């Protein structure tokens, strides 16, 4: 595993070397929002961003993903398979979002149901992350096995340091890439020390929610709790919290055709917050009300996920808090509601606070 320094103005060179082999996706500012898009040069990227609005899961699990298409010629139907995937580098991904790929991988690789689209893309993807010097108030990665400089799920991690980036690889893929870059300088021991201290300082500035590890056990006994009613009260039942969540992975499959007889099968994002999500062909719907749907999202992340994969299904990016259109007080950030309230000096109703007290025994 290598540790090097790269000066800021060499990033564009770094990108152009990568470009010989990879398609590059990076954080691009589009109409005021950061999204991960294919870029041709380093200038297009904004590397000082907080985090993207749409999580980079959209690169591996696009909002609209063609599974196959077909053409019709008289009686003959020709199926057109997808082209093999290009090798891709996601440059500038945040450690929390990189961690989400690890979680998504568990789902798309579950048992005998392997999802070729996602897995092929993942195999062909190299993740080059950027550590967070300015975590948001809504970030809580350190409570869910992550951290602002967590290199566990990236191949290479950059940390901004004065006019340079400290660049460290953590996988073989990362090593191979760094070896190709003959313009990197060595990292001085004193600098490395300073950087590590800075990282620790940033990391400790993020608030910790202590009991998340045990949350699934608490939830086991809360299925019928009136808390869910409270959670659902102001909720719109929209797709925001799950579409913008880096670990939500639900999809719907639809067929489209054109008048000329050609067509395609696509998969599109879907969410458990929509009533249609669970509507069965028979007409029966096992989840008919918002209360059940609000509960599902929390259970999936903090109860089912830990049970199925022994992991928490959340990476602490805080997008659900940031973007929930109604800033749903009882549900905001779901489990971390009280944390957000505290940082905002918001006093929840006695009723909510006492209910949530069960969940959040130790507030920071």
């Amino acid at each position, binding site marked *: 595993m290598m540790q090097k320094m790269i000066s800021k103005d060499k990033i564009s060179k770094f990108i152009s070397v990568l470009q010989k082999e990879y398609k590059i996706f990076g954080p691009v500012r589009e109409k005021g929002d950061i999204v991960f898009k294919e870029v041709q040069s380093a200038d297009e990227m904004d590397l000082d961003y907080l985090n993207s609005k749409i999580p980079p899961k959209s690169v591996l699990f696009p909002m609209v993903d063609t599974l196959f*298409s077909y053409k019709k010629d008289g009686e003959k139907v020709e199926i057109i398979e997808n082209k093999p995937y290009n090798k891709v580098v996601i440059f500038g991904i945040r450690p929390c979002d990189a961690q989400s790929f690890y979680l998504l991988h568990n789902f798309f690789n579950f048992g005998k149901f392997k999802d070729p689209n996602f897995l092929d893309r993942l195999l062909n993807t190299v993740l080059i992350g950027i550590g967070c010097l300015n975590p948001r108030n809504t970030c809580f990665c350190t409570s869910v096995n992550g951290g602002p400089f967590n290199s566990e799920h990236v191949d290479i991690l950059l940390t901004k340091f004065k006019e340079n980036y400290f660049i460290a690889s953590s996988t073989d893929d990362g090593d191979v890439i760094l070896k190709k870059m003959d313009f990197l300088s060595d990292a001085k021991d004193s600098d490395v020390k300073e950087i590590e201290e800075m990282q620790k300082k940033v990391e400790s500035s993020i608030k910790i929610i202590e009991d998340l590890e045990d949350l699934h056990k608490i939830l086991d006994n809360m299925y019928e709790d009136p808390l869910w009613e409270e959670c659902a009260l102001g909720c719109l039942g929209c797709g925001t919290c799950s579409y913008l969540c880096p670990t939500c992975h639900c999809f719907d499959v639809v067929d489209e055709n054109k008048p000329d007889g050609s067509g395609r099968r696509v998969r599109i994002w879907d969410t458990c917050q929509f009533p249609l999500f669970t509507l069965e062909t028979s007409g029966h719907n096992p989840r008919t009300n918002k209360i059940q749907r609000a509960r599902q999202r929390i259970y999936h992340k903090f109860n089912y996920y830990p049970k199925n994969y022994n992991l928490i299904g959340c990476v602490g990016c805080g997008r659900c808090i940031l973007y929930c259109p109604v800033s749903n007080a009882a549900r905001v950030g779901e489990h971390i509601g009280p944390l957000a309230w505290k940082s905002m000096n918001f006093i929840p109703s006695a009723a909510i606070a006492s209910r949530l007290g069960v969940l959040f025994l130790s507030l920071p």
Partner: protein
Amino acid sequence: MVEETKQAAKGEASEEWKPKIIAFLCNWCSYAGADLAGVSRVQYPPNIRIVRVPCSGRINPFFIIKSLSAGWDGILVSGCHPGDCHYISGNYVARRRFAILRDLLIFMGVQPERLNFTWVSAAEGERFGKVVKKTVENVKSVGPNKMFEKDW
């Protein structure tokens, strides 16, 4: 001479493209009017495909938007004249609906020439022919509809 050739080439090109127009006609007046046009051998361009509906009030705006999104180049909707609706007020309801629909579609950038609404009674075979001619001219003036083509 060069100018003439150009003109001719242009003419040929536009001749090649035949607009596809979908017509929604109410059963009691306009469809009967179209029938009369046929029986009386009124000449009109063959670009329309007729969908017969019980009443102009039955025409859901979906039919119109769906047709446009499926690539029809133009729409013709016709019902009974005000006062003559077989169901008394179906065409009044339809008229408000079309007025709003048309205003909104035009506001969002659909060319007005693609959206043709009119009244034709069962006795107006002649008028039906003229209305179709006018509709075809309108649609021809704006060319093929590629507004909602998907790029896959």
